[in-house]
């Protein structure tokens, strides 16, 4: 057995270190470390409840709208506020824009550059991949980053600015869009759809979403010239469709909540099994291997955050969230699987697990579905009506739970208020689930499991397969321990 520390692990969000035990050319065990702690849950205590709308989004500059939405949902639950329907639609549009920006940035800027590595020189597909996807100089990032910037003009209209907006309030959103703004919004979205279809899918969104079987996907991959079919061909050639297996269960809190429920349903599923309802009361955060003071595994509504860097068993600032005592995988692949998206379900049933390929593919499937959803939300705005409920929001003593989906998966905020001040604020972020350390029973977190069996050759520290597996989760380490 050889021990290797991999880090700094870049092109992920924030600081990540992975410790590998390897033997016979594969990973035997992995331990995942989040080496940064900023203390948001401590900083929030003692403040006025509404100040969470300023502090909590700043956990993360990548998914600040998601953090806002979770804080808003928790404050809405606490105060019993009913949001204006236009505000819900506008917030969903902004949230979708952020999540899509994340998915695209991850695909082109974070994930694909590994295929341009010299490790693959000699492969028939390598010269084209290097030209297209090389870090910094690749043609794909030069095309996608301006598309991302234009997409984020949605934030200028709805959110004032991005990241870190205060437009998302329990009563709705703070800027009532007028007819001109609505037309500008529709124009941004039209531009985005055209760019996404041209650069990433190579086909209209509707045609892409008609692909429902592994066979049809293979035909699409073979015929297509855009970046997603390009990835699928490389993935098949490099074995990414067998790499980084996540046996589940997969969990989603449900995404884009509106008057008719969630666009993507919440729940629980196994790769080879059907949907089950989710009971968020069964969540508990285990502290046994975190750099936290010892304590029982507690539901976040009762949880504590007291760091202890000298904890002997600790190896990460991340706690280990568990559902019914089990680690669960979250993210776009979980969201689409739980919602029953046919292609993602078909691939998971075939493979019996999530893989590097399905995680990447699910983000683009989700983006395609969001293109259609946002078009509907823009149409559904009723410009004669308010965007923010007129009633003053009052926060009495009590508790609130805000469960939303960020790009990377299930995000929960739990707030308790007493005497007009925040008494407890606990956050469980998507990467806290995926990159959690072991729990008291010794069960590894999802990435720790998915890395086992990854081929590393004789240089585990430079193994490109490890890079693929880790990045396939699109981790956000700044969210993880916050």
């Amino acid at each position, binding site marked *: 057995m050889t021990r290797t*520390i991999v880090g700094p692990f870049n*092109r992920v*969000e924030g600081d990540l270190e992975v410790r590998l035990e390897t033997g016979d050319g594969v990973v035997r065990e992995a331990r995942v470390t989040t080496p*940064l702690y900023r203390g948001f849950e401590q*900083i929030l205590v003692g*403040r006025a409840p509404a100040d969470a709308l300023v502090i909590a989004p700043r956990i993360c500059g990548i998914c600040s709208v998601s953090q806002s939405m979770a804080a808003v949902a928790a404050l809405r639950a606490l105060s019993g506020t009913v949001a204006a329907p236009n505000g819900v639609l506008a917030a969903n549009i902004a949230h979708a824009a952020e999540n899509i920006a994340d998915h695209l940035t991850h695909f082109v800027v974070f994930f694909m550059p590994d295929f341009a590595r010299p490790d693959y020189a000699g492969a028939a597909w390598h010269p084209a991949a290097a030209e297209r996807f090389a870090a910094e100089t690749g043609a794909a990032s030069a095309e996608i980053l301006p598309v991302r910037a234009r997409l984020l003009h949605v934030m200028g*209209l709805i959110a004032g600015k*991005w990241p870190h907006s205060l437009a998302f309030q329990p009563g709705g959103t703070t*800027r009532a869009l007028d007819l001109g703004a609505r037309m500008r919004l529709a124009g941004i979205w039209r531009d985005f759809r055209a760019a996404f279809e041209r650069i990433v899918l190579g086909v209209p969104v509707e045609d892409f979403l008609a692909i429902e079987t592994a066979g049809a996907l293979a035909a699409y991959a073979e015929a297509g010239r855009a970046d997603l079919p390009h990835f699928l061909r490389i993935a098949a050639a490099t074995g990414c469709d067998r790499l980084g297996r996540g046996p589940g269960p997969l969990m989603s809190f449900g995404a884009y909540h509106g008057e008719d429920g969630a666009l993507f349903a919440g729940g629980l599923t196994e790769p080879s099994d059907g949907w089950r309802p989710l009971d968020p009361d069964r969540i508990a955060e285990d502290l046994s291997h975190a750099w936290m003071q010892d304590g029982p595994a507690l539901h976040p509504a009762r949880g504590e955050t007291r760091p202890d860097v000298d904890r002997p068993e600790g190896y990460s600032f991340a706690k280990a969230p568990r559902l019914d005592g089990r680690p669960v995988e979250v993210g776009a692949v979980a969201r689409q699987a739980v919602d029953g998206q046919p292609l993602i379900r078909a691939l998971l049933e075939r493979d019996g697990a999530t893989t590097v390929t399905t995680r990447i593919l699910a983000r683009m499937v989700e983006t395609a579905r969001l293109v259609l959803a946002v078009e509907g939300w823009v149409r559904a705005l009723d410009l004669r009506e308010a965007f923010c409920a007129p009633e003053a929001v009052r926060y009495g003593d009590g508790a609130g739970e805000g469960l939303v989906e960020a790009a990377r998966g299930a995000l929960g905020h739990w707030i308790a208020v007493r005497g007009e001040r925040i008494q407890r604020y606990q956050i469980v972020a998507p990467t806290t689930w995926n990159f959690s350390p072991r729990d008291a029973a010794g069960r590894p977190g999802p990435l720790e499991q998915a890395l086992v069996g990854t081929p590393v050759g004789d240089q585990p520290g430079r193994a490109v397969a490890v890079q693929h597996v880790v990045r396939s989760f699109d981790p956000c380490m700044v969210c993880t321990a916050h």
Partner: protein
Amino acid sequence: MADRSTLLWLQAGSCGGCTMAVLECGARGWSAELNAVGIDLIWHPSVSLATGAEVIERLERIESGAEPLDILCLEGAVLCGPNGTGRFNRFAGTDRTMLDWVRALAPRAGTVVAVGSCAAFGGIPAGDPDPTDARGLQHTARGPGGVLGTDFRARSGMPVINVSGCAPHPGWIMETLEAVAAGLIGPGDLDALGRPRFFADHLAHHGCSRNEFYEFKASAERPSDRGCMMENLGCKATQAVGDCNQRSWNGGGTCTDGGYACVACTAPGFENIRGFLATPKIAGIPVGLPLDMPKAWFVALAALSKSATPKRVRDNARADRPVVPPGRGPGTR
């Protein structure tokens, strides 16, 4: 430009938001933009290929002086806790803290740029009770100092340039880097807190689309009202530096145009405002008045302007859209 500059970008106690902002720069993407202004990116945690040992070796070469470095950007607060050890933020893959790395690398840099209010002053992580002892490079939330100390000067002789903001405007970051690379920024181009004057010589209030409401003290009362947000909704735009409302964000937005208060995110200590969305008052008069306005004058002028407010302005201030259009007739008193 004959000479090119090298840039190393590190993240300490950060949310990554400054990087997310700067990625909006450039018609052909940020990498092409850096290249075009003569900056060679040695390493950035979000965009570079190099990982693990390759990176550490490179940083060690810079630390030893074997490889020169022109610009060091730090995003995120430097976490000094617990007990001065810096162990709340270890640089992954090394046994060293980011505090240690920053102190080792900053003296080697031609110019040091703090990107964002965290690296400049401590930012949100320094919020009470400041659980990680978070500080900026050359300032803290409470005053000068920071982890490099008041007397720190980079090789160029410049103090740390503080591109504050949470997150800063992408243009503030990129134009600063470009000016540094071009050798066009000197100590006189910074304000007393080390912020580039091209954005810090303005107030966020300048160019605010609500200025007519401000003039007449026609105030918003609820979120999404169109009136001035200073009197009731906590807006600090008359006290916070930034050309936010002159250049605008994300294709045309700003905080105040977006319908919510300026929280003074470019200022040290903004994180400890209590009640961001409400205006503290004594005897009905806001405590935080415009930076350079005598209180008595403000009170007198406010009373006068309130008495002269046109009906259009008064009614529109308390609505989420214009309810009285400009023009003679219904708009007059």
